């Protein structure tokens, strides 16, 4: 079985983002960038399936600037076999990402595409579902467990109020939630080995996709700040304050 895992280069999740003063976006200059955490979980899941002998080959793809190659190297160091960099300096919206991925699926014919459920920059939570629609494949989103058996993917999903399990025919789309697994750190020997693994370079045009945006950014602003509150002495003061506010 072959698995495709798309990975996105985003601002590291520990970095406090700053909105640019001209309101055109957030400041990306000299900021630490990393693989989207949900995508790390997707790579890890693919590597575990390979370790179990269910998967033979893991192909990782990233759509972004030249530096997205570093993100691919990280995935290769975790255990993926080869990479595809679809190079563009434009911001590519989820719909166009899904169209490019559809093109790659057409060439690679994977049995499974595992994606992060959302990227922590735009928080869109769309790409996996959109790709499933474009391919007419079944989808198991927000996965907390994935079992592959007899050409079927049994996916347990985190839904409001609990868990739901679906059986998907393959080929299928899975998107990862936080508790699917805990991604490994790549070892130094694996990081060295990853440098020799192949990365193909492509462009959105190779898949016939025009990356023009449908959503134009009017402005990006800071969220409204909460006013600083007060520190109360003890529990009884807290209770009387809450009572006087009508909160109890």
């Amino acid at each position, binding site marked *: 079985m072959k698995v495709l895992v798309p990975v996105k280069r985003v*601002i590291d*999740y520990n970095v*406090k*983002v700053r909105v640019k003063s001209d309101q055109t976006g*957030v400041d990306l200059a000299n900021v630490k960038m990393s693989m989207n955490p949900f995508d790390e979980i997707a790579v890890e899941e693919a590597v575990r399936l390979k370790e179990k002998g269910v998967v033979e080959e893991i192909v990782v793809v990233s759509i972004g600037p030249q530096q997205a190659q570093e993100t691919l190297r990280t995935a290769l160091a975790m255990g993926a076999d080869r990479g595809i960099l679809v190079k563009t300096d434009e911001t590519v919206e*989820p*719909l166009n990402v899904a169209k490019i991925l559809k093109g790659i699926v057409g060439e690679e014919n994977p049995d499974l595409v595992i994606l992060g459920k959302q990227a*922590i920059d*735009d*928080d*869109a939570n*769309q790409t996996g*579902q959109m*790709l*499933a*629609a*474009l391919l007419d*494949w*079944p*989808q198991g*989103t*927000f996965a907390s467990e994935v079992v592959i058996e007899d050409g079927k993917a*049994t996916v347990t*999903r*985190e*839904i*409001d*109020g*609990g*868990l*739901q*399990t*679906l059986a*998907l*025919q393959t080929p299928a789309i899975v998107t990862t939630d*936080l508790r699917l697994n805990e991604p490994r750190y790549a070892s130094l020997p694996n990081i060295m080995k990853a440098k020799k693994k192949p990365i193909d370079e492509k462009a959105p045009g190779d898949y016939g996709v025009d990356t023009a*945006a*449908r*959503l*134009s*950014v*009017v*402005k*990006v602003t*800071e*969220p409204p700040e*909460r006013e*600083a*509150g*007060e*520190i109360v002495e*003890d*529990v009884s003061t*807290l*209770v009387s*304050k*809450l009572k006087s*506010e009508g*909160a*109890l």
Partner: protein
Amino acid sequence: MAVLVIADHDNESLFDATHKTVTAAKAFGGDIDVLVAGKGSGAVAEAAAKIDGVRKVLHAESDTLEKQLAEAMEALIVPLMDGYDAIFAPATTMGKNCTPRIAAKLDVMQVSDITAIEGTDTFERPIYAGNAIMTVKSSDAKKVVTVRTTSFDAAGEGGSASVEAIDAPTGPFKSAFVEEKIVQSDRPELTSAKRVVSGGRALGSKDEFDRLIVPLADKLGAAVGASRAAVDAGYAPNDYQVGQTGKIVAPELYIAVGISGAIQHLAGMKDSKIIVAINKDEEAPIFQVADYGLVADLFNAVPELTEAL
């Protein structure tokens, strides 16, 4: 202009998220129809017809729609969209799962998780876990939108829309429902509760979480939440997680116990009306958003608070 609102429900009751999505659709403008897709969901369709401002309820029933799985919802909704200019769904797990599939079929770039509407093509939405607010203008002919329900009030009752039965797609589909484990509880549902008590890693164990957080929540008639750290440590189940990647809540009263206040957590609760933080670390970031902070050992303060109520 006409908007189709996708109802979220469990075939027995209509979820409040639907009423809030109707309010967002009203701000967008035009006639509002609500789609109820399910099985044995007649009472839900009747409830949707009573929402103030609804023109008509479309009601589709079948085995394949019982769990509102994405493939069946796509097959049902995409053909309906000839008659609509926009589709609004709540950003619940149902809406997040189904709506992008419909958007892709319509060749529309979805606008996710909107928190405000400025006209028929311009929307506000949080990005970077709520650390920035982006205003976007859509150039697509039809709009596909999911709605952050905590940002809109629930539409009232008082409507008397007609209910029109429509055909359900028959499939076959490539995904099948196996089972569901839904937590049964008498507590209010986390995302719509008026009061929420959340516990963090400082509780130290599941036993302490249950011993301290649950009685306080019971006393207040509150829903129980948890930080990601507490969920990851196994003190509370997954669906208790409040935060950018969990549930977004905005109750009238939010009590954070032993939660330091990581950005990820704050993104899920900072729109609460009154925030109370109990933490022994006075430097904890949670105090920067709290209306009332109590610097104290939670193992003493929480039982005392429960007792005092």
